[in-house]
Structures are given as C-alpha cells and as structure tokens.
C-alpha cells in the first residue's frame, strides 16, 4: 500500500479557503417560498393586509365614516362591491380602513408586550434566586386570567379608545412571552460565553441585553408572530363587546357587532365580510409563524 502525498495545490487550497459567507436575503426568501408553500400563502395574506392598511386612502372607494342614507343595507353590487351596512357606509372601504386599525393595535400590542416580556424573562433567568421566584409568581397570577378577561379588566380601569386597547392587550401578552423567554434564557445562562462576560467584569445590563437577549431571539420571533394574530383577535373581541375601538372609527370587531345580531338573516354581508377578514388575517399570520419556526429550526432546515 502506498500513501499518496497530497499535492501542493490541494494543501494551499485548504489553507487559503475561508468558510463561505451567509446566503443573501433574496436567496433565503426564495428558499422559504419553495419549502413552505403554506407559509408563503400566510405571508401573502399578511402582505396584502399591510398594503391595504398603509394605502387605505387610495384603495377605499368611499369615506368609511360617511353615511349614505339613500343606500342602506344594500347587497353587494358594482357600486358597493361588498354592500353597505345599516347606516349606508361602504363595507369594503370600512374593511380596508379596519385593516389599518387591526394592524396598528395588533403590531403595537404584540411588539410592546413581546419586548417587555423578553427583557423581563431574560432578566428573571439571569438573576435567578428570589427575583426569579417573585417574578414567576406574578406571572402565574397574570396567566391565571384568560387573555380576553385580563384585557377587559384593563379596559375597565383605563377606559376605551385605541391607545387603551393597545395597553389592554399588551399587559396579558407580557407574562405569556416572559415565561417562554425565561425557559430559553435559563439554557443560555449556562453557556460559557455568559461566564466569560462575567469574568470580564461586564455589568448586568450589558450581559442581559448584549449577550443573552440576542441569543433567545429565534424562539422569540416565532412567538411574536403568534402574538400579532392573538392581539388582532383580542382587539376584534374587545371591539365586538363594545369595550375596544369606539364608533365611528372603522374596526372589524365593531362591524361584526353592528351587523351580526340584527341583520344576520336580512343582510348577512354586513357581518360575513368583517368575520372573513378577521379569520383570514389570523390564519395567515399563524401559517406564516408556523413556517417561520420550521424554517429557523436547524434540525428541520435542510430536509
């Protein structure tokens, strides 16, 4: 048996070669679309929602708050593609403007609740001891209430209106985020780079924000997408109950409330279309969130 010495070019290649850089963003997006058709469908719904919400002024054919008493409860027609409600307002225009309300409330509440929960959850895991114990018991108390009940309680204290609704949905999301993040952060705390940061004499804030938070971001992002869906649903529920966004601001939950009970048989389009909008949006966000988790999970990534 002879042993062939590696030729010079091969050795030089080994030395010179540096690991390839990360794939481009477009490449990642294309790969995601190919592997996750359902997630792409969800993403498409979210993108359409965004487009509608941002450019509502140009898309909506009518003013969403203007009453046309000559055209009340009209069935879908060429003039009013999705019909009009009991006050003669164009349902399609209200849906488009309602998307804006849903997006503002959903994303603000999810991001605020997520960010606060993220920092508190990581801090809780990092400091441990009595702080962690106390924090966990506070979360237990908050988690004992279903999301919508706690949101109702907050609205009852602070009153209605868009800002208060955001606050009301933010507060119940904090413990849900904090708990999951704490579990990931407990694992991160034991990784030697956190010890290294302590040995280098870094402050608590730096270790939590620079060394631990960025490393629990993957599970956090997935949770965040679920939170946006939950927040939109909660906003619709609160508005439906009359404790959320107030008339005449267009909101999907409000449109349901106005249409569902009285006109379910005589003018079903008043309730059906906002209901469909809520369902499709939440479905789209959930599908996208699920696919995002699969795409980020390295164990599932290359199948």
């Amino acid at each position, binding site marked *: 048996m002879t042993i062939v010495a590696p030729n010079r070019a091969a050795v030089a290649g080994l030395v010179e070669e540096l690991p390839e850089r990360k794939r481009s963003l477009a490449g990642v997006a294309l790969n995601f679309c190919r592997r996750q058709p359902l997630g792409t469908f969800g993403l498409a719904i979210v993108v359409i929602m965004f487009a509608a919400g941002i450019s509502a002024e140009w898309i909506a054919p009518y003013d969403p708050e203007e009453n046309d008493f000559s055209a009340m409860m009209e069935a879908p027609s060429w003039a009013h593609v999705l019909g009009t409600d009991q006050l003669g307002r164009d349902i399609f225009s209200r849906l488009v403007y309602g998307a804006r309300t849903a997006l503002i409330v959903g994303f603000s509440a999810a991001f605020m609740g997520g960010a606060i929960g993220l920092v508190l959850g990581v801090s809780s895991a990092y400091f441990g001891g009595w702080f962690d114990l106390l924090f966990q018991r506070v979360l237990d108390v908050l988690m004992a209430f279903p999301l919508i009940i706690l949101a109702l309680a907050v609205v009852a204290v602070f009153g209605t209106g868009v800002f208060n609704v955001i606050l009301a949905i933010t507060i119940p999301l904090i413990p849900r985020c904090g708990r999951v993040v704490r579990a990931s952060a407990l694992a991160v705390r034991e990784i030697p*780079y956190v*010890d*290294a940061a302590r040995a*280098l*004499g*870094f402050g608590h804030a730096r270790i939590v924000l620079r060394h631990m938070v960025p490393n629990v971001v993957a599970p956090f992002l997935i949770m965040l997408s679920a939170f946006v869906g939950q927040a939109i649903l909660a906003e619709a529920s609160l508005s439906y109950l009359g404790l959320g966004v107030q008339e005449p601001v267009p909101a999907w939950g409000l449109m349901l409330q106005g249409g569902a009970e009285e006109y379910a048989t005589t003018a079903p389009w008043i309730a059906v279309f906002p209901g469909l909008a809520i369902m499709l949006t939440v479905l789209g966000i959930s599908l996208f969130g699920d696919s995002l988790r699969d795409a980020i999970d390295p164990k599932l990534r290359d199948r």
Partner: protein
Amino acid sequence: MNAGLNQSPLLEVRGLAMHFPVSEGIVLSRKIGDVKAVDGVDFAIGRGETLGLVGESGCGKTTTGRCILRLERPTAGQILFDGQDISRMERKELVGLRRRMQVIFQDPYSSLNPRMKVGDIIAEPIKVHGVEPDAGRRRARVHELLSVCGLDPKFADRYPHEMSGGQRQRVGIARALALDPEFIVCDEAVSALDVSIQAQVVNLLEDLRERFNLTYLFIAHDLSVVRHLCQRVAVMYLGRIVEMADCDELFDNPLHPYTQALLSAVPIPDPRVEATRQFRPAPGEVPSPINPPSGCVFHPRCPMAVEDCKRARPVLRELRPGHWVACSEVH
C-alpha cells in the same frame, strides 16, 4: 508552602471549599446535603509560574478555577491574589480584579457569543473597562491582539461560526489578553481541540507566557500536555489535593497511590512498551462527593490502605523538597 519561591506568590489559596447544597421537595424545600465539589484545597502559584491542576472528571478542578475567578462564591477558605483576599469581595469590588485575572474556556464553540463579530468580542472588554476610549485605536488594538494570537486581522469582521475550532480558541485567548491580565485560568483550554491544533495552542500559550510575563493555572486531564507546559503539578481527587510537586518530580517519582494509578493509565505511544508494562488501575468507582468516604477519601480504592486511613484525614506533608503528599502511608 513554596520552598522554591523567593518572592511572595501571585495567587495563594488556603482551605478553599465550595459546597453546593442539595435540596429536596418543591413547596417546603429542605437541604438534604452538600455536594462537596472542593473540600479544603491549599496551593500557591508564583509569578510567571504555570501550575497544572489535574484529576479525573468531577474531582473539583474546574470548580476550583471558577472560585478563583470568583464566578462562584466559595463556601469557605481564602483566595489571596497579590496579597489581597478576594474570596469575600462583592461584585463592585471585583471589577478591578477582572482586568488582572482572566479565563480561557474549554469549548471554543460555546465560549464565544455567536451573535457578535470576532472584533467586537475582543473589543468589548477594552471598551467596557475604558482602556481605550477611541474607536480607531481600539480597532488597531484588536488587530494587534489577533496577530499576537496567530490570526489574520481580517477575521475581526467575521462571526465565530465562520471559523474552525482552533481559530475560535485563538479568539478566546485574544479576548482573555485584551485587558492585559497577569493571571489566566486555562480551564481545559486545549482539551476540545484536535491533537495537531492542541500542539499549536499549547505553543501559543507558552509564547504568550514569556512575552507578557503571564502566570497560568492550567486545568487539564491530559497529562502529557500538563507535563509539557507546567512547572509544577497538583493532583486532585474528590475535591482535595492529594499530591503536589515539580512537574518532572511528580511524573518520574509519584508517591501518592492515586497519582501512581493515574499515571499508569497514560498510554505510551510505543506498542512494545505498552504490551509489557504494568497497568494498575484503581479498583472501583469514584465515590459520591455528597457523601465522601471518611478519613482519606481515596481509602476504599487504595491498594495501600490500612485501618487508620478510614479515620484520620491525611494532611499534605512535604516528604521531599517541594514534593507534598497527602498520604499517611508513604514516607
């Protein structure tokens, strides 16, 4: 304790103990015992010296290192760094110490934050401690540190996952050097690397010791690396030091029965010698550190044990100049 040292030691550990409580029950948790990870350890390290700390897994050598770094608060004992007891210091008081004492970890993959660029990892301590407030000069310093550790300065813009294990370990070393420390704890610093890379990193550590006048506590289980790098070696077993001597003395003339068993387990890279030599493993398993044996902790496995070993805990005695053994049966 250190006959060969003329000046005062840089680090002196006296009666160091680290007990981790074991509790039972969730609602009414009560303490049912202690894991005695480190149980009364004494040693000293002179300036510019490298002390090897060896022993099998779970013997407490890493915990000893963590106590010295004050990543743990020791249960008992003193840690004198440059004459100052640091064992009871609070976090704020320790900040100054962090610049003088650093650590290199075992695993080059988990000891670097994957979300930070290599340059930022090395620059961060320089920035936090206010050593070099100017960003441009800090960058130059990072490049210098990378070169010193045998890496191309262009690695500063890369992420750790783009590098090999050996390169990452060099980044870890550069980070440890960033604050210009006097003392570095190398916690199994080469154990996770390939043998060829190990040799490179060991040589790098030796070069750095001479260049920056460093003092190392070299924690390892690989005895051949220890023999190459260290001047003195301490052998730990179940939270205690059983033998400590100059490197050659310990390897050529081990006195404690545990050290003898440990050394006989080192393979010799010559099949003919390996086939004929006597291999004497210590019988049985390492006892639990929650409930260690009475007297000498090694007595249940010791070929030389006598009745007295179960009662009296042996102290380290200097049997030959600079050669300390904790065994009542060797003379």
